[in-house]
């Protein structure tokens, strides 16, 4: 899998590149600003671009703009946005239309190599990865007649993993249950929340997000 990285801290950029290289990725481009990234995405056509949300020159929203640009101009390239803070508003902006091939993670997650590599792989393959903080913010959000109270604790766990972009297999591995059991939980959750069942896992992410947000 081919990866492009845009990160202005040299330390982190080198670290990421080494980490992904060792995990079997082909790091085709590294850069420290958004403009360069767009150029390299165009020339090297990577599977996934990993973007720091704060990039020069202003360190405001250049990284996010680049990510949105790539998503609209190069739909075949997945985007994983890394940030020191994860904010619900940004996640909603990034996943406005679809959760396919998009990820938004706290930078701290890089430290957990296995999880992180899995997330990169998932996003590169067209899936999604949403930071647990976002999911928790959404799930614990106060609602007037909270429909989530109908869920069992186990269903809640499954819902959170689902919203973060995990596949059924991923959820099964994490909760140490069978894929069949996961499927049962998923359909029960969708039934209780009155959500129409969706085909792909990333469409499922969007459906759950939309539900949690409203």
């Amino acid at each position, binding site marked *: 899998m081919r990866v492009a990285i845009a990160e202005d801290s040299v330390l982190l950029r080198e670290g*990421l590149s080494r980490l992904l290289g060792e995990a079997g990725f082909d790091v085709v481009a590294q850069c420290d600003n958004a403009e360069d990234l767009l150029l390299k995405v165009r020339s090297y056509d990577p599977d996934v671009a990993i973007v720091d949300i704060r990039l020069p020159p202003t360190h405001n929203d250049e990284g996010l703009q680049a990510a949105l640009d790539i998503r609209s101009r190069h739909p075949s390239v997945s985007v994983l946005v890394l940030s020191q*803070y994860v904010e619900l508003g940004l996640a909603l902006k990034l996943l406005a239309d679809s959760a396919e091939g998009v990820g938004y993670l706290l930078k701290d997650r890089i430290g957990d190599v296995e999880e992180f590599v899995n997330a990169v792989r998932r996003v590169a393959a067209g899936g999604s990865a949403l930071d647990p903080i976002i999911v928790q913010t959404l799930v614990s959000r106060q609602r*007037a007649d909270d429909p989530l109270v109908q869920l069992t604790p186990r269903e809640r766990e499954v819902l959170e993993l689902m919203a973060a972009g995990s596949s059924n297999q991923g959820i099964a591995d994490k909760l140490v249950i069978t894929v069949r059991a996961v499927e049962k939980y998923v359909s029960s959750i969708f039934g209780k929340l009155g959500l129409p069942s969706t085909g792909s896992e990333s469409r499922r992410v969007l459906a759950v997000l939309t539900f949690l947000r409203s």
Partner: protein
Amino acid sequence: MSLGAFGPRSLFQLSAQPDAARVVQHVQLLSLSAICLVGAGVLVTRRRQAGRPRRRLLGLLVDSFALGLVMIAVLFAFGTFDWPGFLAIQRATLVVIGISPLVFLLGLLDARLARSAIGELILELRADPDPADLRDALSDALRDPSLTLAYWLPDFRAYVDLDGQEVELPAGNGRTATLIERNGGHVAALIHDGALDDEPQLLDVVGAAAGISLENGRLHAELRARLEELKGSRARLLDAGQRERQNLERNLHDGAQQRLIALSLELSMLEQKLGDRPDLQSRLDGARAEIALTLEELRDVARGIHPAVLSGHGLAVALESIAARAPLPVRLTVELDARLPDRVEAAAFYVVSESLANIAKHAEASDATVLVAKTRDGLVVEIVDDGVGGADTENGTGLRGLADRVEALGGRLRVWTPLGGGTRVQAEIPCA
């Protein structure tokens, strides 16, 4: 009106050629008529350029003279072409020319009236008028509606208007300034139509009569100017603080936080290389957990210093997050189509976050509504809850601090908090 025509042999020889004579006469009359009209035209243009209040006596005289010229021109034209009504025009012309002395007398009367206007001014000034009304009184006395006042502030070395805004004294342009002195000091300047320069005595008398009132106005203007200055320095202080916080947050972000993340990454790659050494692995795990905790604490500190998401991504995005984190359901509506100035966004952000924190702590509300909308004059931020109301607006609830922040930007913070009727906080922050 009999004029000859040229003789056949000499230009000066008289000869009887009535046709030629008529033509010459017509040309003469029309030329005279044209000259009269040009003269009247010149008078009218000059009069226009001179502006409104001119030396009144002379002005009226000039006006009647111009009218006389026009009448004469018309008379000649009627005579030349034998138009009907010649006699009527002739009488009218005589009347107009005869009126001139009357007009002169009227002018004299007008001058007396001007003097009585000064009397009125003195009476009005004795009643100690509000500085805002002083201009009108002076403008009436000088009969110059365009009159404005500028007060001299020695500390600022500048002329200002009543609101304390700096005023430039006019240079040319048909406007002049008459400086008013009192007790050897500069007090104010009357900025008036240049034509008033023809009446220096009037200006002197008015200036002398208005001395004390102008001094009062000057003090008023000085107060306003100091207030303006204070407001400006308050806003600058706020800005400086904000910038400082932003820099601090940026330094934390670019420095310590990035290094810690890189360190954690390094440790975890080391761990993978260790192979089967469970003792070392668990120690590395511990170290990484410690780093993760430090990062989290650092993030909270940085967020407290300055919400980076606000400067990076704007009010709508930043508010979405705090609304979601609030411990009660929050209905959030943000109606903005563009970014606003940093200080306005920051103020609005703090108004919402502080209000939501207050609601969580004191209001016992079941839900809250947040509305942020751009109006023609600025930004309106409103936070409404359905809690117990009766919030303490003076002590400790942070409302005072919010009001300071909003007022420093020239805005206004209002709180309605009837006992048992919920609380509504509304901030209006001006922005261009």
